[in-house]
């Protein structure tokens, strides 16, 4: 399809982006375009104004900041997966990002775009939840910070206001003792997750001292598998204990039914994949 007409402005700073957003009741931010352009082409959205932030330098790049790494929202998936900082301090993000779509998409699509779009089948919001990431958001009143746990509200909905722009994502490093794994289930390599699980586990003396598990596509938005996490805390780092704890993976979820999976099958996938993700994060397989 061919998109409907729109006005276009390319900005050079987050502040200019915010200013541009304030000029229209119906504006959309264009980053890598991997979600927005298909929607425009199918005329599922017909915004009046497109604000292109792809040239904003302050929104691009990866840097170390004490006990965290900070990733500009406009950093491409390709740059995330090939960053030594990410690979060292957030290997879960590197692993999950490498599964996003295909190489062409990963060279265009951006980390911040995927976070702000908040597709429940997307790979990266779950990683942000597991990392206890913090979102840095620019708006008319200046900059504010929001924890990942408070950022994702509902299907394709975040706490970002119409006149705000996501500038960067701060990921606290996962240090010594932590293991991570992203377990993704798809029918073909480039498709969206049917279900996926992001897991991080800290082992201490043969036990699991702390576990964080986030589920992809098990609800209108990503969510932590709280029952699994509490069952794992203090449990033995054994296949049996992990399998037992993973039986709670579908608790509190509300998976959808579609062409790829009915809800009951998704629930079973969540249990199986959680077991596998946690076991791998715990170094068992």
């Amino acid at each position: 399809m061919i998109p409907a007409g729109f006005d276009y402005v390319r900005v050079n700073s987050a502040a200019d982006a915010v200013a541009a957003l304030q000029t229209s009741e119906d504006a959309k931010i264009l980053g890598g375009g991997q979600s927005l352009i298909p929607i425009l082409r199918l005329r599922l959205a017909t915004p009046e104004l497109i604000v292109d932030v792809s040239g904003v330098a302050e929104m691009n790049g990866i840097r170390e900041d004490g006990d965290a790494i900070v990733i500009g929202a406009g950093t491409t998936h390709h740059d995330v997966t090939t960053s030594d900082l990410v690979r060292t301090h957030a290997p879960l993000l590197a692993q999950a990002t490498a599964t996003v779509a295909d190489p062409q998409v990963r060279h265009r699509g951006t980390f911040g775009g995927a976070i702000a779009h908040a597709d429940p089948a997307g790979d990266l919001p779950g990683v942000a939840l597991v990392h206890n990431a913090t979102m840095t958001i620019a708006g008319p009143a200046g900059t504010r910070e929001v924890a990942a746990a408070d950022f994702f509200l509902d299907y394709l909905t975040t706490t970002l206001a119409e006149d705000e722009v996501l500038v960067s994502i701060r990921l606290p490093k996962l240090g010594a003792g932590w293991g991570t794994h992203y377990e993704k289930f798809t029918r073909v390599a480039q498709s969206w997750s049917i279900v996926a699980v992001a897991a991080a586990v800290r082992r201490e003396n043969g036990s699991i001292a702390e576990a964080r598990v986030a589920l992809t596509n098990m609800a209108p938005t990503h969510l932590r598998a709280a029952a699994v996490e509490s069952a794992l805390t203090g449990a033995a780092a054994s296949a049996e204990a992990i399998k037992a704890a993973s039986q709670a993976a579908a608790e509190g979820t509300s998976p959808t039914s579609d062409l790829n999976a009915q809800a009951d099958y998704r629930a079973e996938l969540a249990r199986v994949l959680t077991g596998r993700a946690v076991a791998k994060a715990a170094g068992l397989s």
Partner: protein
Amino acid sequence: MTVTDKEYETAFGQPLRRKEDAHLITGQTRWVDNLSAPGMLYAAYLRSPMAHAKIRVNTEAAKSYPGVVAVYSAEDFGAAQAVIPDAWTVHPDMKKPVMTPLATDEVRYAGEPIAVVVAETRYQATDALEAIEVDYDPLPAVIDLEAAIGDDSPLVHSSIGTNTCFYIESPGEAYAAAKAQAEADGGVVITRRFLQQRLLPTPMEPRAVLVVPTIDDLTVYASTQIPHVLRLLLAMLTGHPEHKLRVVAPDVGGGFGGKINCLAEEIIGVHLAKRLGRPVKWTETRSENFLQMHHGRAQIQDIELAATREGKLLGLKVDLIADLGAGLRLFTAGVPMFGAAMFNAIYKMDAYQFNCRTVFTTMTPTDAYRGAGRPEATFAIERMMDELAAELGMDPIEVRKKNWIEHHEFPYTTISGSIYDSGNYEAATERAVELFGYDELKAEQKARRERGDRMQLGIGVSTFTEACGLAPSRVMGQLGVGAGGWERAEIRVTLTGKIQVVSGSTPHGQGHWTAWSQLVSDKLGVPFEDVELLAGDTATGPQGMDTYGSRSLVVGGSAIVKACDKVIEKAKRIAAHTLEANPDDLEFAAGVFTVKGSPGPQMAFVEVAAAAQLAHNIPDGMEPSLNSAYTFDPINLSYPHGTHLCCVEIDTETGFTSIYRYACVDDVGTVVNPMIVEGQIHGGLVQGIAQALFEEAVYDEAGNLITGTLVDYLLPSAADVPSFLTDRTETPSTDNPIGAKGVGEAGCIASTPAVVNAIVDALRPYGVNDVRMPCTPERVWRAIQGGQSQSGSVAKGGAQ
């Protein structure tokens, strides 16, 4: 296969690099959408969002949109609009409801064109679509094939009083006797229902049409497989004289059968260019392509097989219900009938009954998609052979050996009346078993079962044959096809000895440039690089029957060889004249004429070419020039075959199925370029595997295509398939001068049953004897959970 830059002494049979790839890879292609003409306008079509409705159209408001030049609906054209053509009269009593390019009063499938906007830019044309007012008065969708047959079903075409297009029943006495014998003698009778899901052809380049008018002439640039047939149809439909209508198929990015039609956008494109006197271009979007390009497969197959206790086939009965969609396109009605002769496949049996009902529904019309009738038939019989083996506790290859035609029995007339030219199923199977590591995988499967491994293996067999080289004209006439089956080639020889091949068969990805050059290079002894191809343009090659049904090399290649023979014959007379020798005393080899038994005088082909063209000194009364043409009409189809073995690995906790190993040995007769053949096999395998595992066009109960984008209609990529183990045996066809049999559809036909057989084999310990295609992880998981086999109805909606 390793490709080197080694100079081959003979081009024939060598894996030469494809001549066409350099311009494809470097983006120097001429797709229709790349073309433009001065003053060109753009067309956009308003398509029905509903499956079935009475419509009233008001185009007035759209006419005042910016840049809009014209807006038309059916009533603006009246009877001059013409109808969507069909070219296969399968049965004298078949119903042929009329469909017009732009829907007249009623729409019958989601995506059917209703109106067209022509504007100065593509954006303006698309924007104005929103201003066309259409009142839809909904009528019931007809989605379920079996329900559509019922007396109380809503009708797709009320004018014909039924949803059945035709019903063909063959005599059942012989099969009834075979079944009775099986039952009396302690044999087996096995029944299965298989569902051939709807598939979308999905060529990489969607359709596109540019029509350029100049005074009385029209040039139609179209992304089509059939420029010659399209010219004839457009002339007949629009009344524009055939000789003033030129059709050009420039670079065409794939077809898989999807571009063998003449649809609204081509017919209306001609009307628009003539009415407006300006060039008009239209390029299909992927969304439009999924709705408007015909779909493939879509059958319910009820199969019954009777065999002795020892596994000898007695008889086969096939009851088909074929989903034609909303109306007839060129070969819609013929697709199930083209498969009718292939259910008996490579097997000998005493009885075969084939019944077929074809049904109209409110979905996109179906037509030929890679294999066209043969994949469906092959799937059914090859699934049944594995079921028979399981029922008898026999090895599936052993069961086939008991029943197949042996290599010394060719030519063989089958129970359905086909005459198979040649084949050696024993040799291909023996090599495939070795390549696959059949015994080793059987042992590994057994070990995994015994230890209760989470990852289970299954092994599936497919020993297929198919009918290729779509021809002969006489047979096509008997089948009711409104076209001949010959192919035309002309060899033009320039003064400097360069060769132009004018080919009626038109490339859309196959490798004609390369294969034709190899044929000509060897025949005439000229360098491979000195041959060029002129194809896909009715101005340079006015006669041809185009490209489909794995016919290009078998039929078109044979015409080239025969035309080369005529060139050589004439060249020999000129050489003899120059050398003052008797033509019968001359030999021609490696591009040089010599006198037999004499080391002395000789004359190279290029010298003869110059002599023929200059005509200063040629035999008295001889026509100058070496140019020659030949029209080849074979006496029979050709029957390639092969043995495909698939091992799947199934994650029993999730149902995820991957291909663990795939080996195939194909016999496509004599091979001109093994690299091209291997490429065709690889591509075909992926497409056939995709039917088994990934692809399905799903409609909801209201008749909406809910797999309308590539997000929902899953195509595999290289990441989803293994590295294939391939080899060949070569049993030449006896019915054409090359010995080729055709390879364009083989992989796609053979692989689907091999994969599903492997999945069912893996799941037999769970009590499963069928899994519906596509065998999604969820379906496999549910089969494991429930132990039940899954049948249902094609296109009932949802993913049950």
